[in-house]
Each structure stands twice: as C-alpha cells, then as structure tokens.
C-alpha cells in the first residue's frame, strides 16, 4: 500500500538529489535544472497531499508554482545568457569577482 508518507519520502529524496546536484555541479545551467528538480519535488508533495486530503487546493497550488517557476526559468536563462556573453563561461566556479 502506497501511503502519502511514501510520496513524501520520494519527494524528499528528489529534493535531496536536487540539492546535491546544485551543490556538486559546476555548470550554471545544470545547477538551475537541479533547482527545478527541487521545485518539482515540492510540487509532488503538494499534489500528494492534495490527493490525501482530497482537496483540489494543493493541486492548484502546484499548477501556480509550475507557472511561476517557468517565469523564473525565463529570467534565469536570460541572465545566464548575459553572463555567457560577458565571460564566455557557464562555470559557476569562475564567477567569483564579488567576494570577501
């Protein structure tokens, strides 16, 4: 029997994977994708909870968050492009001008 808790566990694992990906990958784009993974794990929690409560609100929330995430991605990609234009790199470890 798959309970809602199992969903939470899976979501948590996804979230952790995302976080680790963010932490371990140097490519800004991949890092950004890791964040998307984390967001989606959150959506999973929302949807699973909505299912368990049998309320639509959580699912709606997930939809909203997907939409917002899309906007974020748009802005994010634009900034990454701007960065690439300037420095010809997407390696997060090379953008350390601001420090100290």
């Amino acid at each position, binding site marked *: 029997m798959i309970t809602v808790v199992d969903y939470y566990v899976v979501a948590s694992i996804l979230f952790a994977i995302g976080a680790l990906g963010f932490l371990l990958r*140097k490519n800004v784009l991949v*890092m950004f994708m890791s964040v998307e993974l984390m967001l989606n794990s959150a959506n999973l929690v929302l949807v699973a909870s909505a299912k368990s409560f049998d309320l639509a609100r959580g699912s709606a929330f997930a939809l909203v968050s997907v939409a917002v995430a899309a906007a974020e991605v748009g802005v994010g990609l634009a900034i990454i492009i701007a960065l690439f234009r300037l420095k010809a790199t997407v390696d997060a470890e090379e953008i350390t001008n601001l420090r100290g």
Partner: protein
Amino acid sequence: MEENLLELIILIPFASVVVQYFLHRVLPARLAGLIACGAVLVPFLLTVVVGRGIGAAAPQVPAVTATIASWLTGGGLEVAFGLRLDPLSCAWTLVVTGIGFLIHVYSLGYMHHDPGFKRFFIYMNLFIGSMLALVLGDSLPLLFLGWEGVGLCSYLLIGFWFEDMNNARAGQKAFVVNRIGDLGFLLAMLMIFQTFGTLDIAAVTNGLSAGHAQGTFALGDARITLIALLLFVGACGKSAQLPLFVWLPDAMAGPTPVSALIHAATMVTAGIYMVARFSVFFALAPVASAVVAIVGALTAFVSATIALRQRDIKKVLAYSTCSQLGYMFLGLGVGAYGAAVFHVVTHAFFKALLFLGAGSVIHALSHEQNAMKMGGLKPHLPRTHWTFFVGCFALAGIFPFAGFFSKDKILGEALLGHGWLFPLVGVLGLITALMTAFYTFRLYRLVFTGPERLDAHAKKHLHESPATMTVPLVILALLSIGGGALSLPAFAHFDILGDYLRPIFAPALAVAGEAAHHAVNVEVALMLVSLAVVIGGAWWAWNRFARGPGDQLPLPQGGLPFLLENKWFVDEIYAIFVVGPMRGTALLAGFFDRYVIDGIVNGLARLCDLCGAVVRLLQNGAVHTYALLFIAGAVYLVCSLL
C-alpha cells in the same frame, strides 16, 4: 573678649600671609619683612595676655576656647574651626611665637640678600599660622590641618632654593616620610572617631578618662594601645624618630633660620605635643608607652652616634636634634610628661640658638657649611662665638644651663623608674648624654678654635653678622642660660612650668599612678653622676679637638667609624628595601597595565578582527560555498528537530 583675642592669635599670621601674597608686587621688601615679624610678635603678646588667665589650677582643665567658623558638619560629624588655649597649648604657642619672632627678626638679616626674601616670609608666616593651628586646634582634624600645614611649609622651605634639585629632593623626602607618619595619625584619628564618636580632643581625652573610671577601658586595652601606637607612628614621622628620622638631616638643605625654627625648635616637637596631648592614651597603654620610650632612647642613641662623625655643621645639629627629640620621647615613654615638655622648651631655646649661631657662621663664610673647613673663627665672630658657646653648654647639659635641668629630669625619672625597662633606657640616655657632650664640643672646637682652615671663597666676606641676627642670638643665649629656672628639680620646690601643666597631665598620671617622690639625696646623686658623665665627654672632646681635626685626622679606621660615617647606612637600607621595591612595583604596574590588561583589551579587538577575517574568508565568492553553508544550515535545523 578673650575668645576674640584667641581667634586673633591664629588669624593674624594667616592674614599676614594673604596680605603679603596679594601685595607682593607692591610691598617693599623691608616692609614685608616687618609685617611678617609683626604677625608673629602680636600673637606672642596676645598669648601672654590670654594665657595669663588660665594659669589658675582648677578641677577642670583651665582653658579659653573660641570657635571661628564651622567646618566639617553632617552625618554625625561636628568639627569646627575651634580653638582651645589650655596650659599645654599655651606653652607651645609661646615657644612657637616667641622663638618664631626671634627667628623672623634674625631672618631679616640672614635673608637680606636673597631674591626670594618675600617668598620666604610668606612661607614663614604660613608656618607660624599652621603651627598655631596645630597646637590651638580643639579637634583632631584641625590638629591634622596644622600638622600637614607645617609639613607643607617645611617642604616648601627645605626646597626654598629649588633651583638645586637636591634641595627639592630633600623637601620631597621630608614630605613623603612625614606622610608615612601622617598615615598612622590618620588611622588613629579613624579609630578614635569610631571608638569615641567624636573628634573633639578634649571630649576624646575626657571620654577616655571617664571610660577608664567606669571600667570601659582597662589598663592595657588593646584598642587604646593600638590608637596610641598609631598616634606615635605619626609622631615618629613629624618628630624624626626611628625609623622615620631620615628626612631631618636632609632637611638642612633649607635656609638656616628654617632649620632653627622648623627643624629644631617647633615643628619637630609637634610629635611630642601630640603624645603629650593624648597622654591619657599612653598612660592607659603601657605597651605603647614602652615602645615610645624604647624608640626615643634608641633614636637618641643612634642619632648621637651619627652626630659624632658629621662634618657639616648643620648636619651635626640636625642629628643632635633627632637625638634630643629622642630624649623627649624617652621622657614621655617613662611617664615624665612634664619633663618632656620642659625639655621641649629648653631645647627650643638652645637648639634655635645653636642653629642661628651656625647660620651666622655660614652667613659669614658665604655659605660654607663644612666644619672641617672652618676653625679659628672666635676672633672674627665674637658675638656669634659667645652665644654659640652658651648653646653648647646648654645642649651638653652642663649645670646650670637650661639643658641640664630638663635632660636631668627625664633621665632621673627614667633611671629611677620601676621595672627593668625604664632604668635601661635611662642608661642609654646617659650614654647618649656622654656622646652629646662630646660631639657638641667637637663641633665647637672645629668651628671656633684651632687654626683657620677657610678656603678663599669663604674668607672673602668674613664678617660678624648684623644686629638683626646677633640680637636674637643674645636673647636666646640668655634663655638658654636661665631657662632651667622654669622647672627646677623637685627638691627645690620651684616648678613654674610643672605647676602650670599639672592639670593637663593629671588624668594621665592618675591612671599611671603619680611618680614616686624620690629622696633628695638620690636625685642629687643622679645629677652628679650625669653631670660627671657630661663633663667627661665635653672634656674629652675639648682636648681631642684642641687644634682642630688636623693633627687628629684621619679619624680612626674600622667598622664602627665607617658605619657612623655613613649614618648606619639607613638611607641606603631605605633605598634598597623600601623605595626600590615600591618603585619596582610602580614600574611593574605600568608594565602590567600596558601589556596584560591592555593586551587583553586589544586582544579582544584583535579576536573580533580575526573572526571577521574568517567570515570574509568564507565569503569566497563561489556559489557552491554558499550553497554548502546553506545546506549545512538547513541540515542542522532539520536535524535539530529530531
């Protein structure tokens, strides 16, 4: 009426100080000097007038009192600028103003050429005023005010020629050493206030007598003993007793009239005054009295030994003063209060005389003070010589000069005292008397007789001093001759001073038990013994230094003379064991402050800086570091839930 006169006695010198200070630009020097002399003479006359009225013996201590203004009030303390003229203070006042006046007059001549003439008289008047506050003050704080005031004047006058750093140093030494004593006095004052709840001297002493009568304070009461000892510490400082006598010889750096007035006749006797004033305490504290007697005897002895080998004319007299003060304390210690006061008076006469005589010599020799470079001055300074000669007899204590009577009274009381201690200190006193006679006539011989050993500078202005200086000498010489008449030996039944002072010491003697009257023949026998000792010493010196030191020098070599030559190394011992460690502590404190405390303070600031550096190091610009910390924080927070 009498009250007002009493107030005037003390106000006049102070008023004179104020006038002289503020008008010092306007006043001609001569006039300033005269004002200063007048400001001492008038109080003297007033004291005579007021003091006559209190001679009558009464059950209560006869006194005239006056209150000038309130001073310290509140919180259970009530101290006014109150004056009290009783026989004891009257005696002192007369000595202070009388001798003070003579020395002021003398100074007119002595300081004539000095550019600091006006300043000198300001200080001198200030001294007289302070001394009067000391003896007339009816409360401990006022006594202390005078006590410190005379200390200040002493300081200022020792360092009068402050261009020479040594003089300034001597003044500082005097003040600081005195402060050690003052600390004792201060603590005694605190204890007295705590014990009696008042600082009024009469109330305190009466309170103690009454307390003793009621059994509150037994003989030998620890508290009273402690107070007495602390008071005596104060007295030791001011009156240059062991181990605090080191400042007095150095104090000779001041002008000679100062040495005569302050460091011989008056200020240094303040300790005697205080002990006499609080005689009840000492009477009730046999231990303290014994300490006083022993310290007095030892000081007398040690100072006399040092005086044996001094070359500086003033140093000889200075050590002699210490020695004589030791006699006085000896007297106080053995309960011979009246005799001690008597010795104060006679000593004031002859020591002032000797100092002024020495001053006259120094003045004549253009400030040469080394007795080894004098000799043969008798024909050049006839008046000085004769008066000095008289002074020598008085100091040596040769019948019938003043010193004989007073010294003998003290020695008699000591030698005939009960127990083993009093005779012991008496014997010490007797040995001292021998040495006193020796060094006195050694000095006389070195200065006035034998071949002239003057150098050219000293010879240039060799002259007898002017009348302003010699007249006081003559007066003092007369007093030194006849002063003994104030208090003849007991069997003569003529004791003006003793009778006058009797009410003062009655309570103390009542406690200690009136000294036994000794048989006349015993007393006379003692007198003869001491006279023989003294004359022996004098004769020895007279012969030995007949032709100056020339044929006798070098002085005997060996350990003891070396020790004496170097004043028992007391100054050096102080330097090594007291001043050195204190100075070391000061430097250590400076070091500790700078490196330890401030080290911690600055270290804390540095620690903050260091932490800041760590924070900034973590902020390395890499997103991954940030994410790592972020996640670490998140993990920590989540884990803290478990």
